[in-house]
C-alpha cells in the first residue's frame, strides 16, 4: 500500500492531490428502518481479510500514516461519513454483499430478526451502515 501511494506521486501535477476513501476498521451495522425509528438487528459478517488489527482497512490507515511520517505526503483534510445500502429485504442485502464485497454476508440471526421486523412493520427497509474515511493529501515537495 505504501508503494502504491508513492507510485501515484509521479502522475500528479505539482499542485495535485490524492484522495483516498476506504471503510473504517469497524463492523458494518445492519438496521431495519421502521416508521417508528431504526432498530439495530446485527452486523455484516465479513470473513475477508478486511477487518481487524491485521486487516486491509487498518493496513490502509497505517499506510497513510507511514507516508506522511516519512515526509512523502502531507495530510490536507480528513473526514468520516456514513455510507448506506438500503433494500426491501435481507435477501437483497445478502445478495449484494455476496456479489460486491469480498466475503461478506448476513448471518441467520440477523436475517431472521430483520425479516420479523419487516413483517411486523410493513413498508420498512433493511439498511447496512458503513463508516468511511476520506482523506486528501498532497505530495511533499522535494521528497
Amino acid at each position, binding site marked *: 500500500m505504501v508503494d*502504491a501511494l508513492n*507510485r*501515484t506521486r*509521479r*502522475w*500528479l501535477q505539482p499542485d495535485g*492531490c490524492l*484522495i483516498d476513501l476506504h471503510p473504517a476498521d469497524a463492523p458494518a451495522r445492519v438496521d431495519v428502518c421502521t416508521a417508528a425509528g431504526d432498530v439495530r438487528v446485527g452486523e455484516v459478517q465479513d470473513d475477508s481479510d478486511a477487518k481487524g488489527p491485521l486487516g486491509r482497512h487498518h493496513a490502509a490507515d497505517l499506510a497513510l500514516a507511514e507516508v506522511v511520517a516519512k515526509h512523502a505526503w502531507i495530510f490536507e483534510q480528513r473526514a468520516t461519513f456514513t455510507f448506506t445500502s438500503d433494500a426491501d429485504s435481507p435477501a437483497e442485502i445478502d445478495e449484494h454483499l455476496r456479489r460486491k464485497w469480498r466475503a461478506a454476508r448476513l448471518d441467520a440471526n440477523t436475517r431472521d430478526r430483520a425479516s420479523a421486523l419487516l413483517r411486523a412493520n410493513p413498508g420498512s427497509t433493511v439498511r447496512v451502515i458503513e463508516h*468511511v474515511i476520506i482523506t486528501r493529501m498532497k505530495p511533499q515537495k522535494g521528497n
Partner: protein
Amino acid sequence: MALRLDADNHEIAALADFLPARGGLRVLEIGCGDGRMTRRYAHIADRVLAVDSSAEQLDEFRASMPLDLRGRIELRAGPIETLQIPDEDFDVVLMSWSL
C-alpha cells in the same frame, strides 16, 4: 425497491468537498470497479482515466456507462504496477475503496 446505495448522498457530498474547486479537472481513479462512484462525479471532471485490475468489472462499467460520460471517461484494465501514464498528467489521483 431496488437496492439503493448512499441514498443520503453522503459519499458524493464528501467527495465534492474534497475535490479541488477548479474547472478542467483531470482525475486518475484507481480501483474504479464497476464505476459506481465514477458515474457520480465524472460530470464535474474534464477527463477521467478509470483503472481496475478486473476486466470483468470494467466490462460491467462499460455496459452501464451513461452516453453523456463516454467522451470523458477512459477505462483501462491492469494493476497499478504496470500502468503506462505520462508523468504529471493528473490533478487528482482518487483511490476509491482500493487501498
